[in-house]
């Protein structure tokens, strides 16, 4: 169910890599667990993000949670549509619901990411 062409981080973010650029979003599992998303604090362009730390905050009708950066880098662009319509993340987490594009600063961090079949297993275990 999770797209094969993407890579996944254990904090339920996905990454689409194109050269030095990486598009980041949250996974279908994450959006489903959060429920209806009412707000996302979109990061600012040019901001530095660090892998495994908070890059954004998401509020749903159930909870307020951190979006954890899967990779380190500099924000090149952000999905401004989410500002007024954060529910796009619920509707299309792997497409129109992307959050930001970063320029990757440390290629070695890519090794820590999972492929889709590993992530499928990971969430199966997490769901217990």
């Amino acid at each position, binding site marked *: 169910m999770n797209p094969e062409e993407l890579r996944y981080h254990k904090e339920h973010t996905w990454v689409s890599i194109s050269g030095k650029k990486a598009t980041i979003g949250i996974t279908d599992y994450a959006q489903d667990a959060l429920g209806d998303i*009412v707000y996302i604090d979109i990061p600012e362009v040019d901001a530095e993000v660090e892998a495994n730390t908070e890059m954004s905050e998401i509020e749903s*009708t159930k*909870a307020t949670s951190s979006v954890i950066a899967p990779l380190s880098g500099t924000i090149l662009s952000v999905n401004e549509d989410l500002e007024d319509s954060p529910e796009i993340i619920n509707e299309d987490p792997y497409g129109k619901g992307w959050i930001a594009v970063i320029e990757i600063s440390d290629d070695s961090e890519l090794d820590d990411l999972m492929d889709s079949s590993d992530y499928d297993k990971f969430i199966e275990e997490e769901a217990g």
Partner: protein
Amino acid sequence: MKILILGSGPGGYVAALRGAQMGAEVTVVEEKEVGGTCLNEGCIPTKTLVASAEAYAKAKDLASYGIDFTGELRPNAKKIVQRKNSVIATQVKGIRALFKSWGITLKEGRGSFISEKQIRVVSKNGPEETLTADKFIIATGSRPASIPTFPFDGNRIISSTEALDMQEIPDSMLIIGAGVMGCEFGCIYREFGTDVTLIELMPRALTTEDPEISQIIERELKKKKIKLHTGVKVEKVTTSETGVTAYLSGGKELTASKLLVTIGRAFNTAGVGLENAGVTLDKRGAVTVNEFMETSNKDIYAIGDVTGGMLLAHVASKQGLCAVGNIMGHKEKMDYSVIPAGIFTHPEIASVGVREHQLIERGDKDGVNYKVGRFQYRALGKAHAMGEISGMFKVIADAKTNKLLGVHIIGQNASDIIHEAAVAMKAGLTAEALAETVHAHPTLAEGLMEAAEDVMGRAVHAPKP
């Protein structure tokens, strides 16, 4: 006993009524209008504007409540101000009627001491007169503090007083100070459609509140697209025909049609003749008082903002009761141990007792000296039903005894819910006492019970950590 009170704000008028109830002959001298800053230029007028902003916000959001509406919604500044003025007028009448019913004499004019026992009253259109009394209470209050390098001009550079009387909604507004007033006015005008930018010298909005409260309000401001610059100083301000430009430390320039300065309050001690009465001021220019509200002259008391403590209407009222109690021979000390306070942003904020950063600053540790319980508004059915899910309850208790140390609430109706915590703290109760008290369902106050449960790690409606 003859008591003469200078000023009829929430300190002075409450003192007057209690004095009369206790059998004193009371005269109040008021230069402007009964009710003081609180009623005429402060608490009550801002809350009427908050109510207009809330009504507009709900109206814009009718669709989410299942109400179809086709038509134009528009905030009308003139009518909003008219409504505010009529609310004030009703309250002013109420105080005047209470004075009359208790036989309190109101002298309308400016009063100042000409000796330790005499007050000269200069009225607007009546004769001058000299009044005497056995005891005096100074309750002259405070006014908006200006920044000397760019003082208020009443047009481009304004204070809260003008911000309550706007005849049109400005398209943009810079607000210096992201404290209580800055955040309140920011939320009000943003709701009406103004492009609002807050500029704060300190590293966070609402510096005196618990840091978690600041964090949440900062996110809520961002949601409303209110811009916030923290840790910056306004170096210079220039005004023009069309607007005002603020030059920030760090080089940024911001332009807007209005600049609202909310950096604090100045004490009304000038022209009161304090020097003729042997009343001394402290370094900040506030009247020095002891715990009995006595000034350096034992026959003269001072209460409220002019004493420079907590600038809150309800503190002034309590000080007024304390001063009158002492005048009438019931020796009592002013007790500041439990003072709740509300901030009327959207969402609302309320607090009582210690803030977590104060505990950390004195070396206390979470889990060792104190424990924190939290509960989210969005976990309450009532919050969802109301369509107001933002916010949090935070209960700080002693780690060993669970005695309540502080409670902080951000969310719908916070300023009403806080009093449950205030009563509990005044009675020296524990988090268990709050947790074990049955709370009616469905209410927002259930969140306080759950946060108290969470102090012991057993909030029922919170997920397993």
